[in-house]
Structure formats: C-alpha cells, structure tokens
C-alpha cells in the first residue's frame, strides 16, 4: 500500500470517515471548543530532565522576548512513548510544531510518509558551515532534501565502569572483548552488586542496544541495499553472549529500559553501565561518592578485529508538516541553536548530548564547565565515538537510508527475539526466523 499517495480515484479513508461523522448527532457540537492562539508553538522532546527543562525555559523566555507575538509551550514525551503519541498526533492533525531529540531513523520514517516539513531552510539559517562536516548526512532524504537537523550526538552504548570495583577484583584494564567483559562482570558481581544492567525488556532500548551487539559481532540487520541480513552467525553469537550475560544482570533487567539501566549503575547496584554521558551528571547529583571512580570506553565486541560500533541516535530537530505555524516554528527551531541558549541546554547534561556545531564544540563558553573539564578524556572519547556512530536507519556509511527503521523499533521484533531466546529459552532459529518475518512484513507494508 502506498502511504504517501492518497488512493487515486477512489474515496480516501479519511473522506469516508468525515462523511460518517457528519451524519452523527455529534457534528452539531461546538467545534471551536479548542480555541488556541494562532501563534502558540508546541515543542516536544523526550529529553526533559529538570535541569534540561530549566535550560529550555530560559531559551523560550529569550525567544519570546525577541518575538512578542509568539508563545512557546514545552511538552515532554518519552523515549519509549513517543511513537504511539506521535502516531496519534499525526492522525489527529493536532501536532506539535517543533520536535527535538527524536532519533534520526524515526524522523526518516515520518518523512517518508509525508508527515514532516523539509528542513533545509532552517539548516541554512543555522549556517551550513557551522556544522561538523557531514553532520547532516543522516538526515538527507531520497528526494535530496533534509528532513531534520541534528541537535546533538550521543554515544548511547558507552561502557561505563567503576575503577574501585575493578581494582578490588584485580582487573587491570577496561574490557575490550566480550569474553573479557563477561569475566570482569563475574569477578565484580558480589556483595549485592550485579555485573551489568543490560536491558532485556520488550522495548526500544533492548532493540537499539541489541542491534549494537549484532554489529559488535560483525553482523548487520540489513545489507547496504536493505535486504534483511539478520539471520546470520553474528546474530547467533550476539544472542549467545547476551544470554550468557543474563545471570550477571539484576533480576528486574527483564523490564529495563534507559531509566532503569542508568539508575542501576548510578546507584551503585551494577559494576558496569551502558549509557550516554548522562551518567556523569547523575552521579554528581545522586551518588557523588562514585564521581572519582567512573570512566567509560566504547562497548566491547566479540573480538578486537571487529571494529567498535557506537549507537548514536542522532538526536534531531524537525517540524511536522501539519504544523499550523510553520514559519514561527522554523524561526524557533533555528533559535534553539543560538549559542548562549544552546550551550546552556548542553550543559544541563554535559557529555550526554554532544554538540553538532563545530562552532559550539570549540566555543570556550561550552568547554567552561566543571563536568566537561573533570571528564575531558571521557567526553572526548564519546564525542569521537558518536561522530562515527550509526543506528538502524543508517547502519553504516555504505547503507541506504532505511525509512522503515522507526516502525521496526516501535514494533519491537528485535526485542521480542532477544526475550524469546534469553527468557523463554526458545530456539534461536525459530526466534530469528520470526523476527525476520516480522521485519519483512514491515518492510513490505
């Protein structure tokens, strides 16, 4: 079924529904019950920790001062919840005007369905030359435009470790291979502390993180021309390893997503962590005793001859096509990158969202931050890893952009596969086979 074109000749589904509704008694009800001021912009983001909210409010305040006719309202969504929320919003036509911090693959999916406004004007307004080279490649669309721009990079699957626990267990270096990681976790798992907080939930994090494991085993989900390549030795190896890690993760890891996994490491319940640089600020705020013990590295892989694979969601900024205030939205989207406000936003979680603008990354005001100074080695490592990072919509530089990646993550076939193998003890062949079938159905839909 072609999704972008409305069915030719025949009555469209929406038209049919309108007709149905018109005949109902409810059509007589007051439609103007939702009288909104014409220039109120709704801004959505799943990144909404209190410090980030404060930075956003500051940006909004200064923007509103510059443009007295426009009001901006921030509304948070969540990493696991944005897909159904946006689906409902798009369907109702009552959409946010600016959406930030969604992963690039979801944005490409929406663009392919005609739900997003091309973003090139805003990129021009921000200044093409201000970006790191190639920073917007991931947002390039098949029709040669851009569907969004990056608001920040992140190294979402960095390996976090505790030096104190490593020393206690006699581990000299940070694990680089899976075998080393497993051995280290086994050595450090004692006294109520678990080895790792890997997610085994039926959610986006499990899918996204496990895709990383497939690549760290030398595999891929799709070939560069988007044929499904999931059924491979690498996937089996990754599943095997992931299964062997289950006993080194907290019991509740079967329901872990980002928040639980992060909190487990920060609270000291696990010896290693898998997350972005947000670990730094959370440790400072919630468990400062660990501040001098933590450091990070790229996540281990099956063997050192496989290159590390960093999952970068390429957090985006985009404008839904149904927005009623596109011009104001574009103005605001560009203003988000205005240095003072943008730096404040980045400083709300230093090392978590890494700048995509070269002019910001080199800006002394950006570098002048306690956490960025204290953990300069870690931040640099994550920046480099994230810049060379990938995700399901963009598995390697050679891959075509995958416009169905957002739907694949939202429907969880990969998390299902992990759960079936690890929790249910189903055979790998059956689980992989069903995942391939489910992904194939989405690709063909």
């Amino acid at each position, binding site marked *: 079924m072609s999704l972008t074109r409305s069915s030719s000749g025949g009555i469209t589904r929406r038209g049919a*529904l*309108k007709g*149905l*509704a018109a005949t*109902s008694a*409810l*059509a007589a*009800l007051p*439609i103007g*019950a*939702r009288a909104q001021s014409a220039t109120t912009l*709704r801004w959505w983001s*799943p*990144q*909404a*920790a*209190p410090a980030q909210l404060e930075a956003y409010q500051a940006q909004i305040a200064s923007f509103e001062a510059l443009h007295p006719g426009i009001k901006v*309202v921030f*509304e*948070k*969504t*969540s*990493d*696991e*919840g944005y897909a159904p*929320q946006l689906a*409902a*919003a798009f*369907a*109702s*036509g*009552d959409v946010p005007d600016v959406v930030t911090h969604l992963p690039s693959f979801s944005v490409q999916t929406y663009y392919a369905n005609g739900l997003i406004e091309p973003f090139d004007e805003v990129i021009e307004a921000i200044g093409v030359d201000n970006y790191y080279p190639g920073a917007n490649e991931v947002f390039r669309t098949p029709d040669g435009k851009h569907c969004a721009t990056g608001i920040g990079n992140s190294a979402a699957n960095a390996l976090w470790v505790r030096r104190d626990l490593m020393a206690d267990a006699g581990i000299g270096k940070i694990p680089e291979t899976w075998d080393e990681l497993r051995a280290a976790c086994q050595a450090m798992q004692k006294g*109520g502390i678990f080895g790792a907080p890997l997610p085994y939930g039926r959610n986006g994090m499990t899918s996204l993180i496990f895709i990383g494991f497939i690549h760290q085993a030398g595999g891929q989900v799709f070939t560069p021309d988007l044929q499904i390549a999931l059924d491979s030795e690498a996937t089996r190896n990754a599943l095997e390893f992931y299964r062997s890690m289950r006993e080194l993760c907290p019991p509740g890891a079967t329901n872990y*997503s*980002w*928040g*639980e996994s*992060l*909190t487990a490491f920060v*609270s*000291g*319940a696990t010896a290693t962590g898998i997350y972005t640089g*947000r670990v730094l600020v*959370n440790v400072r705020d*919630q*468990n400062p005793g660990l501040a001098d013990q933590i450091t990070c590295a790229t996540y281990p892989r099956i063997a050192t001859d496989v290159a590390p694979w960093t999952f970068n969601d390429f957090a985006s900024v985009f404008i839904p096509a149904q927005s009623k205030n596109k011009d104001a939205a574009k103005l605001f989207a560009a203003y988000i990158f205005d240095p003072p406000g943008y730096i404040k936003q980045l400083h709300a*979680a230093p090392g978590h969202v890494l700048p995509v603008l070269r002019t910001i990354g080199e800006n002394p005001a950006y570098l002048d931050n306690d956490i960025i100074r204290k953990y300069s080695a870690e931040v640099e490592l994550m920046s480099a890893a994230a810049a060379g990072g990938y995700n399901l919509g963009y598995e390697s530089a050679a891959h075509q952009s995958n416009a169905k990646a957002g739907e694949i993550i939202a429907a969880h076939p990969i998390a299902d596969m992990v759960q079936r193998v690890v929790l249910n003890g189903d055979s790998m062949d059956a689980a992989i086979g069903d995942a391939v079938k489910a992904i194939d159905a989405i690709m063909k839909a």
Partner: protein
Amino acid sequence: MTAIRRVLFNLFAWTVVLAVAFPLFWMIVTSVKPQSELFRRPPTFLPETVTFEHYWTLLTRTGFLDYFRNSVILSVATTLTVVAIATLGAYSLVRFRYRGRESLAFLVLFTYLLPSVVLIIPLYLMLVTLGVSNTIFSLVIAYTTFALPYALWLLRSFMAGIPEDLESAALVDGASRMGAFRDIILPQLLPGIISTALFTFILSWNEYLYALVLVNSDAARPLTTGVMSMLISAFNIEWSLLMAASVMMSVPLIVAFAFLQSYLTSGFGAGGVKG
C-alpha cells in the same frame, strides 16, 4: 466466643487487613524518605529522616498541579453532565410507559458492560474529525461512554427503591409530573444522586486508557497519564517522587472516604449485585 478466641480472631483478622493495606502504608513511607535512604539495601522500614522535599518538588518543579487541575475540571464536568442526563433518564425509565422502554433499559445494561477498547478507535477518529481531540472537552465526551450507562444503571436502581404512593398523592392533589419530580422524587433520590456522583467522579478520576489515546498535550492531560509519564523517563527514576504523586493523587479519595463512606457502600448495592 470466649475472650481468648476473640483476641486471637481479632489478631488474625487485623493481620490480614493490615497486609492488604500494606502497599498503601509503604507508599506513604516511601514518599517521605530522602533519595539517599531509598537506595539503601536492605531498605529501612520506617524512614530514618522524614522529608517533605518530594512533595515540594512535585508541586513546584513538575506539571503535577496542572494535571491535578485538569483532572478536577474533567471529573467535575463529566459528573455534572452525566448525573444530570442520567437522573432524567432514570426517572423516565422507571416511572413512565412508552414503546421501546424495555429495549432502552436493555441497551443501557449492554453498554454498562461494553469494553471501552471497542469504542476507543472509532471514538478517537470521530473526535479527530470533529476537531476536538486533545482537549478536556474530548475526554468528557469519551468518559460519557462509560459513565452514563453506569450512572443510569445506578440511578435506575435507586429510583426503583422510592415508593410510588407519595408521587401519586401529589399528582392527585394536582401537581404536574415535573412538579412532583422536583418536590417529591428529587429529595428522596438525593442520597442516590450523591452516591452516583461519587462513583462517576471516581471513575473519571481514575480513567487511563482514553486519556492515553485522546490527549497528547500537557494543557489537557489528566493526572493518570501525567503521573505515569513521570515514571517512563529515560534520565532518572525517582520512586519517592512517584510515591508522593500517588499520595497526592489519592487525596480526593481519602476525603470521600472520611466523609462520605456510606454513600460509597450504598452505590455498590445498586450497581447490579443487589438481591
């Protein structure tokens, strides 16, 4: 019953009651523990330090008050609409005769049992087409789908319990039907109306599914989905804050319990299980 048996029985009974109530006790205890104490293993049973910082954070740094306001508006609007319509409807169903009355009563009962998940998709599309989705008003419409049959069914049963002779006497004395309704029926129905209103309010207050699907903006989001969205955040999970939110969210209920408990219990009987 001898004294010892009586004591033993009471001990046993109260152990069970307290076990049932334990999660609620635990909710309150957790809400006043500082974050550092929360990560303690093993956990402390009673808080070593009592703090109200989470309540303060909840009220000043989250959208809790907005959600609370939305929930109040939404529940009050639903209750008023539904109880007004249902009182008239129940009066008609019980005290009048016309063709189709029996089928209507049957329809009410049927919709009383209907799962909201069946209605939610077309209802969602309808509200979208009307352009009212994402407002408190749209939720009031949606809540009517389960609250109206419920209220009708309750009030119908209360109405049936009011003796007819007073009304007949008033009619003989020359009162009009509506006059008799106002002067005779309404005062006697009042406890039933209060009970129905309470139930409708609580149903609306606690509703989750429609709020999840129909509303995506903080301006219209009620407490249920609002508080839940505090849990699913990727950056932190603050259990003490969530427990504080849970306590605050239950405040209207506690009030109802303290002052109006008999109305709550009488609503049970009318809800279809009365012999």
